[in-house]
Structure formats: structure tokens, C-alpha cells
């Protein structure tokens, strides 16, 4: 029985800024990292592996350099890793991405039964949170998102019980396997790799699948399979260091009003 964890390698977005003067991106030395949400997904997979004895497979679609991130997954204890990499996959939006991932999982499940697909809630570079649901819909798996706790897996009845965190409430849901579970950051704390595993993961062999082995129609993947296109990027106007009320302003009410005005005007809060 397999848990497939989908992970994405992303640029460390906290290090990406737009230069206010030139309008270009400042991203000198911005390293690639494992998408933080996916690190939690991986951790949850490993915990379930320890509890129920699954095998964990880390799956990622991305350029060849994604190998590094998959090795990190092996270093914390994933049993296997597959990299989906092909020029034809490039430029994909979430629709096209979920297509490739779902097909890969279909292929994997032909060899070994897949019980769960675990994804992070969203990625930090895209924030879309829809690859998980996309995979679930394509494969017809149960879809459980915003999960902050996996309560139980009943292998005999093929049922899974989780807790989902929604606005103002938790829901305890039970559903059937195979399921796609998208986890929140709160669910766990990812472990730190041990040195022996790190060393092994450096040398481990990774499987790389390209579109020759996947045989997907070029219209459905990559740029061509994507429905959305970015028109324009620009800098959010939230520069640091604005003093709204200096010490000369001795009127706290006015200071508070200015703050509220600014927050409302920037859609940060609403007063309705």
C-alpha cells in the first residue's frame, strides 16, 4: 500500500522582492526550496507510514533540478521518488499540472495500490490550492482539504477519518480510500533529516519519467494544457516603514482613524 506525496520545488518566495525603484525583481541568490506546505504533507505521510506501515513515494513535476528536492524527501524517510520532467510539462498552470500528476499516480497505482495522495494545502509561489482537488477529481478519489489532523485509517473498511479546519469550525469527516488529503501547516512539524539518510539519499537513484513514458496528449499538458495566463506583474504597494502617526500627534483617536483608513483602503480589513 502506497502513500503518494506530491511535492513541488519552489523559489524561496520570501526572498523575492520587487525593487521599488526599477520595478524589477530582486532575487539575487534566491534558492529553491521544498514548498513548505508540502514538507508538512511529506511529514504526515511519514507518520502514517510509521503508524500503519505504508510505503511513501514522493512525486514531483518540475525541471531536472527538482531532483535536489526529491533527495531531501528521501533524506527524511520517503521510500521512493519519481520526478516527472519533460519540456512538454513546462509552463503548466494548475489545471495542466494536476493532469500530469494524476496520470502519473494512475500509472503508479497500476503497479502498487495507492491508499492516499497527500498534498500540501497550497504552494508559496502560486498559492492556488487547487492541484490537490484537481488530482482527486481526475482520479475520482475522495477529496479532503484543509486537514489539520488525521485521526484514523481503517484499512479493513478502507475508510479514513480526518479533522478539517474551516472558518470558525472544525469538521470531523470520514471518507473512503483512496483519498486525496490536502494538509494545513498546523498539522505537524516536519522532522529533521538524520545524517545516515542524508548520505544515502545523495546516492539514491531517482526515477525520472518524461512524456515518452507518460504518453500524454500535448494539448492537455504544459503550456498548451493551461487555461490561465499571467498578463502582468507589479509590486504590491506595501512598503515598510510608514509612520502614520509620529510622536507629535498627541491625538490617539486620530492616529487610530488613520490606521483604519489605510487598512480599509488597502482591503486589508473591512468595516462592513
Amino acid at each position: 500500500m502506497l502513500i503518494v506525496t506530491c511535492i513541488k520545488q519552489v523559489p524561496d518566495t520570501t526572498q523575492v522582492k520587487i525593487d521599488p525603484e526599477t520595478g524589477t525583481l530582486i532575487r539575487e541568490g534566491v534558492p529553491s526550496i521544498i514548498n513548505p506546505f508540502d514538507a508538512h504533507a511529506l511529514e504526515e505521510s511519514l507518520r502514517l507510514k510509521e503508524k500503519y506501515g505504508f510505503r511513501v513515494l514522493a512525486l514531483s513535476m518540475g525541471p531536472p533540478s527538482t531532483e535536489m528536492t526529491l533527495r531531501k524527501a528521501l533524506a527524511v524517510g520517503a521510500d521512493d521518488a519519481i520526478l516527472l520532467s519533460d519540456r512538454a510539462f513546462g509552463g503548466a498552470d494548475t489545471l495542466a499540472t494536476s493532469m500530469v500528476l494524476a496520470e502519473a499516480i494512475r500509472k503508479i497505482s497500476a503497479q502498487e495500490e495507492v491508499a492516499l495522495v497527500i498534498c500540501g494545502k497550497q504552494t508559496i509561489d502560486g498559492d492556488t490550492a487547487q492541484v490537490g482537488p484537481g488530482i482527486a477529481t481526475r482520479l475520482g478519489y475522495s477529496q479532503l482539504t484543509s486537514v489539520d489532523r488525521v485521526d484514523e485509517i481503517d484499512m479493513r473498511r478502507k475508510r479514513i477519518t480526518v479533522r478539517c479546519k474551516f472558518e470558525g469550525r472544525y469538521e470531523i469527516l470520514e471518507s473512503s480510500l483512496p483519498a486525496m488529503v490536502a494538509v494545513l501547516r498546523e498539522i505537524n512539524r516536519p522532522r529533521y533529516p538524520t545524517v545516515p539518510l542524508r548520505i544515502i539519499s545523495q546516492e539514491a537513484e531517482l526515477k525520472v519519467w518524461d512524456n515518452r513514458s507518460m504518453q500524454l496528449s500535448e494539448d492537455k499538458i504544459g503550456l498548451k494544457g493551461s487555461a490561465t495566463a499571467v498578463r502582468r506583474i507589479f509590486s504590491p504597494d506595501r512598503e515598510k516603514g510608514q509612520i502614520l502617526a509620529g510622536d507629535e500627534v498627541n491625538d490617539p483617536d486620530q492616529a487610530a482613524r488613520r490606521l483604519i483608513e489605510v487598512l480599509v483602503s488597502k482591503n486589508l480589513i473591512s468595516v462592513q
Partner: protein
Amino acid sequence: MEEKKRIKKPLGVARLLEGKCIFCGARCQSACPKDCVEMTEQGEPIIDITCCIGCKKCVKICPSQAIEMYFTPEQQRLLDEIARHGAPAAEEEAGQEEVINSASDSGYRGVWVFVEQINGEPAAVSWELLGVGRHLSWQLKVDLCAVVIGEKVQHLCSESFAYGADKVYIVDEPVFRFYRTQPYFVALCNLVNKYKPEILLIGATGVGRDLAGALATCLNTGLTADCTGLGVDEKRRLLMQTRPAFGGNIMATIVTEKNWPQMATVRPHTMHIHEKDPSRSGEIIRERQYIAEDDIATKIIEIIERTQEGSVDIAGADFIVSGGRGMQSADNFRILQELADELGGVVACSRCVVDAGWMPAERQVGQTGKTVRPKIYIAAGISGAIQHLVGMQNSDIIIAINRDKHAPIFEVAHYGLVGDLFKIIPSLTRQLKALRANGKT
């Protein structure tokens, strides 16, 4: 003259502009018909100019205008010459331009808003969506329709009209009592396929995002998540969806050009609710769905209200009001709690506060406490020692309230208020309350 006729317009080669690439995911590489683009480790293109045929596909596809055409001085001279003689310029450009179907001939019409509800209680974001939806529908000159799905939700129709809907599609059946992905997306999918709206807006709540992801996949259309700004390109009937990307460090405007409906989830609190007009009404269209309870894999075991009391999870909170030694006593944290309640957030603190026993250790933010990433972090009476800063530096917006204008917290704050927190905080709470009370009526 003879000679000039033979001048072929140089096409140039594509070149990356330093520092402009946003690692969008190799769009240029996949656009290149000749495979001349390699991606670096970081995801930046390297264009092999020896094989570039100057087709400009990559230039056009790049979302951040990071690629330009480059001409050698030689070619530039030729170009200039051609320009001077006003010669064959026009011929190629038009031919190469891809003709994109415009929405006008897609057959999809109308702006739809999904009305989210729990137990018949509508989520405020639904009315915000109707608010922005109205503007969009006016611009596109179509109807604004609300979609209500649930059990015993009839009353939401009139509310939808009051907040701006022209039409309401309603599905009212027992299987829809609680939100579950499968029945909801199937129902909505059926409706969309039947009525073909051009725009579908859903709130970017936990439920909304769950639903939208599944729905977009089943409709095979684009979805832009968590938008904070919406507009339309009237000519091409395109929804211009603006949202923060890269952890909020940049904003991106995204369009869905060749698939319909154009779907977006919209971040709560970012759109204005239209003034409620109870006198409005409109057409109600009832729809039946035939989904059997037994066919639904997911069961709801329990719903637990999340209250402010008990163990508060500051790590996952969207709004945090945090107090430091400047609070002076455990009692004074009451004023922070009041503000937090008003914002729908939680109270956190610096280490000094935990040391003094004013707050439990699980509320500590910082190096040896928790790391938080709220949308708004308000630091009151916190000096901003680096040990504290590391725990909250990635908050979307940081607001500092401190008496000491040299306090290091102001170096990281987006907005700073120099002054006495005991006056400013209560005033903030009071004014927010007052404004909201006004807004409601």
C-alpha cells in the same frame, strides 16, 4: 532601388533581461518551437541564440516581459534603414499574431456567484462577491446570478436579491444539508454546463477553495485563486483577476482566455458589499439534482465550533494582536483581546510577558516561541528585539504601536504609530466597532 527590395527584415534573437524573470515555470521554454531554451537550476531561461529563429513566441508568452528581441548593430542599422524607407514592415507581424477566440463568440454569458452557507447561515464573503459581481455584470451588460445550494435555504434567495443578484438558481435538497465536495461540485458542474455562465466567483474560504478546485477540473477551465482585485476587459469580455503571488511579494494579473467559465476565488474582506436593498427581487430558478446519499463517500461525523477560548493556535491565525512588556500587567491584556475579537484574531505576546506570567508560554512569538504568518500582526508595547522579530517577520502586514520612536520594531513595521498603546488600542477597537455598526445597517 533594386537593392532595397532584397533587404529582408532581420528578425533578431530573443534575449533575457537581467533580473526580470519570475521563474513562472518555464513558459518560454515550452513556447519555443525550436527547443532553443534551457532552464537554469533556479528556473531562469538560457536562450541559445544560435538556434533562435526570432519567432517571438517566448517574448509574448512571458508574463513579466523578461524577454526582448535583440538585434546586432548590423541588423539594427538595417532595421533603421527599413524604418526610414517605410518599406515592407507590416507584412509579417499580423500573420504571426495568434488569433485568440474572444469570449464574445463562446456562447457563455452571465456572472455567477456561489452563495456559501452553513446551516442556512450565509458566509459574509458571498455578499462581497455579489458586490463586485454587480460591477462586472454592469460592465458586461449581463445578469448577475446567485447560486444557492443547501437544505432549507429558500430565505437566501431574497437576501441574494437584496445584495444585488438579478437571478437566483437554487438547489434545495437534504443531501446538501452540509457542504461536502462531491455532491456540491457535481451539482454546480451540472448547472454550469446547463446555463453556461462566463464568469463564476466563489469565496476563497476553506469550503470555497475546496469546491472551486474540483469544479474547475471537472469543467476543464482555468481558476485563479485568492483574488484581491477583479476587473473586466470589456472588449474581449475577459475577467482580469489580480492576486498576490510569490508570498505576497508581487501582484499578478491573470486571465483565462480560451476556456469558460472564467473562475476565480476571491479573498474575503477584499470586496465591498453593496448596500442592502430588501425591496429588490428577481427570478428564482429551481433546479433538482438526483444525487443519492448512499453514493456519497464522505460522511460528516461531527462539527465543532471553534471558540476563542481554550487552547489558542497562534501559528494558524490570520490576525494577531501581540503585547510586550509595555502592557505592564496581565489585566491589561484585556484591551488586546477586545481588539483581537473585533478583528477575528488572537492575542500573542513577547517572551517578557511569558516570563512575567501574564500569558501562557504557547502564546510566545519568536525565536524560542512560535513562528507566525498572519495577514496582520499588531505589535503593541514590543520593542522588537531580533529574538522576537524572527517569529513574525513574515507577516503580511506588521503594525507597530510603541512610545519609543527609536524602537527597532519600527524598522520592520509597515505601519507605525508612535504613541501610548493604552490610548491607541482602545480607540482602534472603539472606532472599528462604530464603523462596523454603521456598515451593517
